[in-house]
C-alpha cells in the first residue's frame, strides 16, 4: 500500500531483479541447495494462498495442509496410474482443490472464527486419515512414488528437460511469479478490497453492500486452489508423495510462515516461507522440536509482532486507533456528556 514517488524507477528495478532471479541457478553448484530453493518456491505459493484467507480476509484456517495434500495426491494418482503429465494434472489439481475448498468454505465460514479454526483442523485431519488409509488409491502409509517428471519443453531447437533440481527452478519460479501477480491483481480490485474490509470490520463492510459470506467463500476457494497448485508442482518435482507430509504439522508450518513473514503481505509470505523452509531443513532430525519451536514462534508473533516481520516496517495503526478512540472517550466523559453505549 506504500505510495512510492519514484514508481517508474521501482518498476524497472523490480523487472531487473526478477530477471536476475532466473539466473540464480548459474551460481549454485550444490544440488541440495537448489533443492531447498525449489522447496522455498513451493512454500511461497502455499503461503501466498493461505495469506489470501488468513491475512487479507482475516479468516484463520489450520487445515490448508490438506489442500496442499489433495493437490499433490490428485497429480500423483493421475500421473502414476494414467501417465498424465504435469500440464494436465496441474489444472485438475487446482479444480479439485477449488471444489473441495468451496465446499469446506461454504460449511466452515458460516461458523464464527474460533469454530472455523476447529472445522478446518477437523477437515485437515480427516483428509490426512484418508491419505493414510485409502491404501488402494493413495498407497497408504507408503504413499505414491514414481510420479513422472514434466515432459521436456521444446522451444525451436532448444530443449529444456527436467532431470536435475536446477531444471525445475525456472518452472517453479514462473508459477510463483504468476501466483504473486494473481495475488496482486486480486487484492487491488473491488473483490480484494471487500475481503480487507471484512477483515477490518464485518458489520461496516456489509453496510457498504459487500456480501460478506459469499466474498469469504470465494476467497477461501481461491486460497485452496493456490495450495492445490503448489501440491501438483510438489508431486511432479519430488516424484513422491506420502501422507506424513500433509499431516497437521504442514498446516501449522504454512500458518507459521504467514504469521512470521507478516499477514496480508506478499513480501511477508516470501520471507516467512524462506525462513521456515531453511529452519525446518536445519531441524530435520528432530521433528518434535520443530513443532515446539513453531508453536512458540506463533505465540510470540501473535503477542509481540502481530504483523510479522513485514509489520516491523510499519507502525501499529490498529493500536493507534484504539488509543485515539479511548482518548476521545475520556475527553467526552470529562465534559460530562454521555458517550452512549
Amino acid at each position, binding site marked *: 500500500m506504500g505510495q512510492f514517488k519514484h514508481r517508474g524507477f521501482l518498476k524497472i528495478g523490480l523487472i531487473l531483479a526478477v530477471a536476475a532471479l532466473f539466473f540464480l541457478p548459474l551460481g549454485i553448484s550444490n544440488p541440495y541447495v537448489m533443492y531447498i530453493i525449489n522447496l522455498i518456491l513451493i512454500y511461497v505459493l502455499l503461503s501466498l494462498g493461505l495469506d489470501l484467507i488468513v491475512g487479507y480476509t482475516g479468516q484463520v484456517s489450520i487445515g490448508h495442509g490438506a489442500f496442499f495434500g489433495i493437490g499433490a495426491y490428485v497429480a500423483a494418482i493421475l500421473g502414476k496410474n494414467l501417465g498424465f503429465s504435469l500440464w494436465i494434472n496441474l489444472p485438475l489439481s487446482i479444480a479439485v482443490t477449488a471444489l473441495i475448498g468451496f465446499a469446506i468454505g461454504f460449511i466452515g465460514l458460516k461458523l464464527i472464527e474460533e469454530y472455523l479454526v476447529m472445522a478446518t483442523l477437523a477437515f485437515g485431519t480427516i483428509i490426512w486419515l484418508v491419505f493414510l488409509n485409502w491404501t488402494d488409491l493413495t498407497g497408504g502409509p507408503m504413499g505414491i512414488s514414481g510420479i513422472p517428471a514434466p515432459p521436456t519443453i521444446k522451444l525451436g531447437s532448444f530443449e529444456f528437460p527436467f532431470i536435475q533440481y536446477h531444471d525445475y527452478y525456472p518452472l517453479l519460479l514462473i508459477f510463483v511469479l504468476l501466483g504473486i501477480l494473481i495475488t496482486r491483481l486480486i487484492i487491488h480490485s473491488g473483490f480484494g478490497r471487500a475481503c480487507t474490509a471484512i477483515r477490518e470490520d464485518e458489520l461496516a*463492510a456489509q453496510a457498504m453492500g459487500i456480501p460478506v459470506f459469499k466474498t469469504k467463500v470465494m476467497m477461501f476457494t481461491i486460497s485452496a486452489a493456490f495450495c492445490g497448485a503448489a501440491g501438483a508442482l510438489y508431486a511432479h518435482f519430488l516424484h513422491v508423495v506420502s501422507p506424513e507430509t500433509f499431516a497437521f504439522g504442514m498446516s501449522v508450518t504454512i500458518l507459521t510462515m504467514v504469521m512470521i513473514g507478516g499477514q496480508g503481505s506478499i513480501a511477508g509470505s516470501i520471507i516467512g516461507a524462506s525462513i521456515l523452509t531453511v529452519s525446518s531443513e536445519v531441524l530435520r532430525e528432530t521433528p518434535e522440536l520443530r513443532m515446539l519451536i513453531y508453536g512458540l514462534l506463533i505465540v510470540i508473533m501473535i503477542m509481540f509482532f502481530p504483523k510479522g516481520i513485514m509489520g516491523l516496517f510499519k507502525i501499529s495503526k490498529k493500536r493507534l486507533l484504539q488509543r485515539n478512540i479511548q482518548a476521545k472517550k475520556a475527553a467526552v466523559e470529562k465534559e460530562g456528556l454521555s458517550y452512549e453505549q
Partner: protein
Amino acid sequence: MNSEHVNDSAILTVTDLSRTFGGVKAVNNLSFSVSENNIHAIIGPNGAGKSTLFNLITGVITPNQGKIQLVNQDITSLRPDKIAEQGVSRTFQNIRLFPDMTVFETVLIGTYLLTGGKLLPAVFRTKHFRNKERQAKERIEEILKFVGLWGMRHEYAAKLSYGNQRRVEIARALATNPRLLLLDEPTAGMNQKETKELMQLFSEVNKQGITILIIAHDMHLVNTLSNQITVINFGEKLVEGPPEIIQSHPAVIEAYMGRAEVNA
C-alpha cells in the same frame, strides 16, 4: 395505531414494526414514513429504541413483525448488503472505520456497489473493470473534496480528529451512492465547532437530493436541521411533526426534555 396513514412521497415507510429482546420491547408497533428529500429526525430518550430501529431498517437485525418499505419495495428482513444495494447507507453510533486503512482506502470500500466484486474481470483487468476502477476513484475524489478531506486522503483514518473520522464515515456512506442516508447520532461527542460544521455538511448532502434520517440528542441541531421529527419512547411513537410543533408538545417535554439535560 393508525397505520393507514399513507404518504405518497415517502421514500421509507415503516409499518407496525416490532422487535423484542428477551422481555424488552425495543421497538413496539412503530409506524412512520420518511418523505423524499427531507431531513427527518428521530429523537427520544436513551434506550427509546432509536438504534434498534436503525438496525432493523438496515437489516442488521430482523423484526418480529411489521414491514419496512423503500419506495415501493419491501426490504423487510433483507440482508444488510442487499439493503445497501437498494440505496440505503448509514453511519454508526460508535464510529466504525477500517483500522488499517487510509482515508482514501476507507472511502474506496464504499464504491463496492459500483465496481462489484467479480473475480475474473479483476484478474484479466478487462476494459470494463478498468473503467469502473477509474470511475470509483473519480467518485472518491469528488466526495473527499465535498466533505473536505481530500488533503488528508493518504492519512490513516484512525489518526484523524473525531470530527474528521465522522466525515470519513459519511464519505464512505456517500460513496455507495445512497438515496437514503441514516445517521446514528453523528454529532455525539463533538465539540460545538465540529457539530456546526457537520450540520452544514448534512444540509449540503441533503441538497444533493439525498434523504436523511438522523438520530440525534442535540435539540438545537434537530430544530435547525430537520423538517420532520418523530419522537419515540419505549419503542413506541410518541408524536410526529415539524420542529415548531414538536418543540412545544407537552408529551415531548415530559418524556424527553423533562428528563435528559438538554444542551440547547
